[in-house]
């Protein structure tokens, strides 16, 4: 067993730990691993080039930027904030948990591409969430804003990840089925997808509880600020 290619993993760990620019770190790790495994330079270059262009779909979100940018220029985020501030009974927790539910259900139907950070979180969920936070805590500073945005992205990710495994025709289930089939165990996709359901429910409950705790933390801070202001 050749353990030397593991040094590529070490390059990644050290690079991220030292907060170096991630792009050269990742390429350096690939070169280190490949060369230590005994690949020739032309083979390694070809592998790097081929794998990179095969992954082009990961940059598809760039196409959303002109439309989103134009709408933001025309005041989309300001409008989302104003609308949210007017909606009575729409609290931060209801907004985020409602989004989590819709996102997870859509992912269960295999519709992972319809929402995401560029399509829905930046233009809609984040500004609406900021307005909801401002209802609780009018003195919102930059750190609070960053935290809200991070929670919004996290909610989007959790909904997507733990919903998509329940869908029978998506990558994960087919990968599991294919792996077993190669090793002589025949399973139906449905039997695999079904066992993702308990975790899907647990993930929804856990993320909802964390959103609720986040809201309660903000409310307590607002209460303390008010008491402090009065006294």
């Amino acid at each position, binding site marked *: 067993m050749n353990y030397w290619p*593991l040094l*590529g*993993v070490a390059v990644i760990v050290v690079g991220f730990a030292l907060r170096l620019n*991630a*792009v*050269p770190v*990742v*390429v350096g790790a*690939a*070169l280190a*691993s*490949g060369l230590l*495994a005994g690949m020739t330079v032309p083979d*390694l*270059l*070809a*592998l*790097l080039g*081929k*794998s990179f*262009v095969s*992954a*082009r779909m990961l940059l*598809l979100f*760039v*196409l*959303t930027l*002109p*439309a*989103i940018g134009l*709408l933001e*220029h*025309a*005041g989309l*985020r300001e*409008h989302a904030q104003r*609308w949210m501030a007017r909606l009575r009974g729409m609290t931060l927790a209801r907004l985020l948990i409602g989004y989590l539910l819709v996102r997870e259900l859509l992912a269960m139907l295999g*519709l992972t*591409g*319809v929402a995401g*950070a560029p399509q829905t979180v*930046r233009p809609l969920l984040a500004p609406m969430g900021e307005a909801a936070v401002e209802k609780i805590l009018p003195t919102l500073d930059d750190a609070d804003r*960053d935290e809200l945005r*991070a929670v919004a992205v*996290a909610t989007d*990710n*959790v909904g997507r990840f733990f919903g998509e495994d329940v869908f029978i025709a998506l990558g994960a*289930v087919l990968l*599991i089925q294919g*792996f077993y089939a190669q*090793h002589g165990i025949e399973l139906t996709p449905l*039997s*695999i997808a079904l*066992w*993702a359901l*308990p*975790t899907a429910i*647990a993930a929804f409950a*856990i993320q909802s509880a*964390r959103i609720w705790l986040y809201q309660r933390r903000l409310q307590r801070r607002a209460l303390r600020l008010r008491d402090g202001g009065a006294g």
Partner: protein
Amino acid sequence: MLRIQYAYWLIAAFLFYVAWRNLRAGQGWRAAFWLLLGLLFGGGDYVLAQQAAGHTLPAQVAGAVVIALAALAPRLRRHPHGEEGDAAQRLQSAIRLGHRLFVPALLIPLVTLLVALFGAHLSIAGHALFAAPQMTLTGLALACVVALLAAAWVARAPVHRGLAQGQRLLDAIGWAALLPLLLAALGEVFTQSGVGAAIAAIAGHLLPEGSAFACLLVFALGMVLFTVIMGNAFAAFPVMMAGIGLPLLVGQYGAHPAILGSMGMLCGYCGTLVTPMAADYNLVPAALLELRDPYGVIRAQWWSAVAIFLATFVMMWLLVFR
């Protein structure tokens, strides 16, 4: 017929436009970076076709371009950019346009959804309108074009202003946009150079004898750890299954294969929530939402990941050895 390749050409055209605008603004390095990336997108299909036909030279050139991008990336300082136009003007526009602003934004998910649901049935004169591979993503690309036109119409602004605003957002994201593709390529190189096999061998040495629970724990933690390293549970799954899952848990301890596979994969997903290697979910959104801490999203996900892992592991332990 609409194919995913057209979306790549559209991205290439947009990247060339971004490069040209940066060049005119005197940002030479930035222009070179987006130009090279645009070339990779425009020429990608040629590279893959030549590779399939046994000619590796275009792929080698593409690999050299990737290295050039890595050399350029540190020169792209992320500049904290002020929003263009003043806030008062945006607010006025928001009041004037009202809910109409939501329409183009919602068109992106809506058109994508319609193509995903009904795209397979659409045809013009007997020719299918959408090619079957990657139909949802082709739909997303189409939705973006429709949304841009709708946004220009709603805001009474020329389309090129949208492209300029898109350039502003892309420059704000900067080199982070490249990470998902690079990490996918890294995963491929790791697999080919036997990193997975080496990790599975180490996990095998650490494995205690005779305890089904300990074996399951090493399997689940191995899925998490390997996913953290590779940034992707799909890469971790075959390695951990071949090393521990199939021979020991299924073969020796009689684990239920469907439960082991499904919940084992979900343990890996918990790893995805906490690793910078899953850049498309963790780092790119942080840049897109202009968080000052690039690891802010991971911080927000940390305790969710721990709790979901524990819940999944306990359920797996209770169910898998029935």
